[in-house]
């Protein structure tokens, strides 16, 4: 009976604990990058598109076909924008991780208590809160599954020397590259364990390095490292301060003051106690020629190592996989203390309690925060989806968007998934939104007062107030009371592919087609002028294959009669322009932008002379 109870608790307690701690995470709705991945399916129209959606580098050059592309495309194909099934997938993967971690720890420590404690300690770490609450960080959970799966197979191979386990390790390892780039560290983990506990198998880990090296080279070629921004790697002494930051977070106590008022001495004191206990135990065991503790510490260091050069992007969920090593070490130290004496066991439980009591409030608060924010985003997106059905083809203006809702929802364009209407913020909304230049510009989401006012007058737009339990239609109030107070300045963002901006275009433009518009050899448009010298003209255009039949051609841009620049176009597809304005135009209320292509073409079955197709123009 006792054995049965022990076995039941071993397998069921960690998943139950996981559900209790991260209950709000399980029920959180989509937010931030989720919408980019949910919209991926909209880009797939052919097998070539599918391959591109699955394997082309995206989002900082990452290629994660299983944990992001396939996961989102498959789940959204079946469940649409229901978040719960996505989270159930994530939690099931995590339950498998907990079972693997328990089995691994029990196998390497020969203690069921350590095997039970390790998953519980791992779950108590705030580093898991984001992966279990935010769908886009499923890559962490799936990568942990691949690493733990491969390592478990390696252990079984060491014990049995059956080739099937060795092959299974390779399968997990290779598949892991589709979950997260961090999988590249697995050979070092296997080697570290072999050196610590099974030296005879060191040689068996070496071929794994060849695959990781090949992946690293390939990844470097298809997704070159970022040279600016928060994902730029800095190979300098900052890696040590970054490591120290992560070490403090890993022991949880340093995070507690974020959610609960604590005396100043608490975090450093608790971190010191936990550091001394973990390092002391590992070193004491090493002195007794048991190197498992050093392997556990090495797990933390090895998995964290590739993330240390990201000194400008220190984030708690990067700890999700590294802390597995500390959880194993913690579980083992508790079991060893318990075995030594009841008194030592009790002390170890108190110390573990300090860690759990520090970590759990942070984990639960983080999950609840994601849940609450997801609710706000859901209310907005589901309300706009209803408005899109109610007012097909009309422009939707949102009022009352705060900073959090903008960056968690609006910025990631969730509305293109739910309907075809264009959605903007009301003029003046930017005053309530904190700018994050490193993430993106707010201006592209704002409609200029003059354009919004005109759209309201012509009944081409509806306005909804966001903030309550439901979106509220406040169109007539805005049309009659608010719009007359707006300044009549021209927009500094213009989408020629929208009817809304038609009266800002010169007479030569052709009719609207889909989300773009063709120009002939020459065309003009009017915009609000640049305010400061740093502002530039950004535009997106499209060059058809047929136009290049006669070789490269040029697009010349002028503003206010002054030359701005010229772009030579050598290949078909999207053309992105970024040109500086002449100093004399700075501060002008209005500029006329003139576009001239050096050659037009006439496609088969079309009598028009076409220059280029355009989408957006923005001054920022």
């Amino acid at each position, binding site marked *: 009976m006792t054995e049965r109870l022990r076995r039941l608790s071993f397998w069921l307690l960690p998943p139950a604990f996981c559900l209790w701690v991260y209950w709000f995470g399980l029920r959180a709705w989509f937010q931030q990058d989720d919408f980019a991945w949910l919209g991926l399916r909209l880009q797939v129209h052919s097998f070539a598109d599918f391959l591109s959606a699955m394997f082309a580098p995206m989002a900082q050059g990452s290629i994660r076909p299983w944990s992001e592309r396939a996961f989102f495309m498959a789940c959204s194909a079946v469940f*649409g924008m229901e978040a719960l099934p996505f989270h159930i997938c994530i939690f099931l993967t995590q339950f498998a991780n907990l079972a693997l971690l328990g089995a691994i720890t029990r196998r390497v420590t020969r203690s069921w208590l350590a095997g039970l404690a390790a998953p519980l300690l791992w779950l108590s770490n705030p580093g898991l809160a984001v992966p279990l609450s935010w769908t886009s960080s499923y890559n962490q959970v799936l990568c942990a599954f691949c690493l733990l799966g491969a390592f478990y197979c390696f252990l079984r191979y060491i014990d049995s020397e059956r080739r099937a386990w060795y092959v299974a390790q390779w399968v997990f390892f290779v598949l892991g590259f589709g979950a997260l780039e961090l999988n590249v560290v697995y050979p070092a983990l296997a080697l570290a364990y072999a050196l610590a506990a099974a030296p005879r198998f060191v040689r068996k880990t070496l071929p794994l390095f060849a695959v990781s090296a090949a992946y690293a080279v390939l990844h470097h070629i298809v997704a070159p490292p970022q040279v600016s921004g928060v994902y730029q790697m800095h190979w300098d002494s900052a890696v040590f301060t970054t490591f120290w930051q992560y070490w403090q977070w890993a022991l949880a106590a340093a995070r507690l003051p974020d959610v609960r008022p604590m005396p100043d001495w608490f975090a450093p004191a608790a971190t010191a106690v936990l550091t001394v206990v973990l390092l002391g135990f590992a070193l004491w065991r090493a002195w007794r020629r048991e190197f498992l503790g050093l392997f556990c510490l090495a797990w933390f260091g090895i998995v964290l190592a590739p993330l240390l050069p990201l000194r400008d992007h220190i984030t708690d969920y990067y700890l999700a996989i590294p802390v597995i090593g500390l959880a194993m070490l913690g579980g083992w130290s508790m079991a060893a203390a318990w075995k030594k004496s009841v008194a030592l066991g009790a002390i170890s439980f108190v110390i573990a309690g300090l860690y759990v009591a520090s970590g759990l409030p942070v984990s639960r608060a983080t999950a609840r925060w994601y849940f609450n924010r997801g609710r706000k985003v859901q209310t907005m997106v589901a309300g706009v989806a209803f408005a899109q059905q109610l007012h097909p083809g009309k422009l939707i203006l949102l009022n009352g968007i705060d900073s959090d809702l903008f960056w968690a929802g609006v910025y990631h364009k969730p509305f293109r998934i739910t309907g075809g209407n264009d959605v903007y913020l009301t003029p003046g909304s930017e005053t309530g939104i904190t700018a994050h230049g490193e993430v993106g510009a707010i201006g592209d989401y704002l409609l200029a007062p003059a354009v919004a006012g005109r759209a309201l007058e012509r009944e081409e737009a509806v306005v909804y107030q966001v903030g309550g339990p439901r979106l509220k239609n406040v169109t007539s109030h805005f049309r009659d009371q608010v719009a007359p107070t707006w300044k009549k300045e021209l927009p500094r963002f213009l989408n020629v592919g929208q009817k809304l901006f038609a009266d800002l275009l010169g007479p030569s433009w052709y009719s609207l087609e889909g989300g773009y518009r063709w120009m002939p050899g020459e065309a003009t448009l009017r915009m609000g002028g640049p305010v400061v010298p740093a502002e530039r003209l950004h535009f997106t255009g499209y060059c058809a294959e047929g136009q290049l039949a006669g070789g490269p051609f040029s697009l010349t841009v002028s503003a206010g009669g002054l030359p701005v620049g010229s772009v030579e176009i050598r290949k078909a597809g999207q053309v992105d322009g970024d040109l500086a304005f002449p100093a004399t135009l700075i501060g002008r209320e209005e500029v006329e932008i003139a576009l001239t292509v050096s050659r037009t073409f006439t496609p088969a079955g079309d009598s028009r002379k076409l220059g280029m197709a355009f989408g957006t123009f923005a001054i920022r």
Partner: protein
Amino acid sequence: MRRLALIALVALAFTAGCKRRDKIVVQPTEEEGQALASVVRVADPRMAPQLISGFHDVEQNSWRWTKSKFTVAIRPPSGAATKGAKLELKFSLPDAVFTKVGAVTLSAKIGTTELPAMKFPKPGECTYSVEVPATLLNADSVKVEFTLDKFLAAGAAEQRELGVVVSTVGFEAK
């Protein structure tokens, strides 16, 4: 074999059932026809559109600081177009403002018609209350513009221009 077929059938039914789902469960919006409020609680996000200008963000979920001039759109209560109504602005004149500027006078106007101004000689809770003639209240919504004669200019106490702390503003039917 039979078991395999059963599993395949269940999976197919499950998938087919799922495919019928909407892309998103929409949430009905509150459409127009439900008129603007006659009494505006300035902290209520649903009433935020009625605050046209001159209000800072909500604080403590219950009030907002104003600037020296602030404008609100209010629905006249039923019968106001024949009987008139009482305009009431409930606000607090904080010590922080009073100690620097002293007594303040609050005036209001609807369209081009000036309403009587009131002087507030002490800090604390205050109510600006004036009669509004019926002739000014015969529209679906009325824009009321308030002006303070004294206030804290931007930079005097903080970055924002600060007037008074408002909780509600609205018409009371006669």
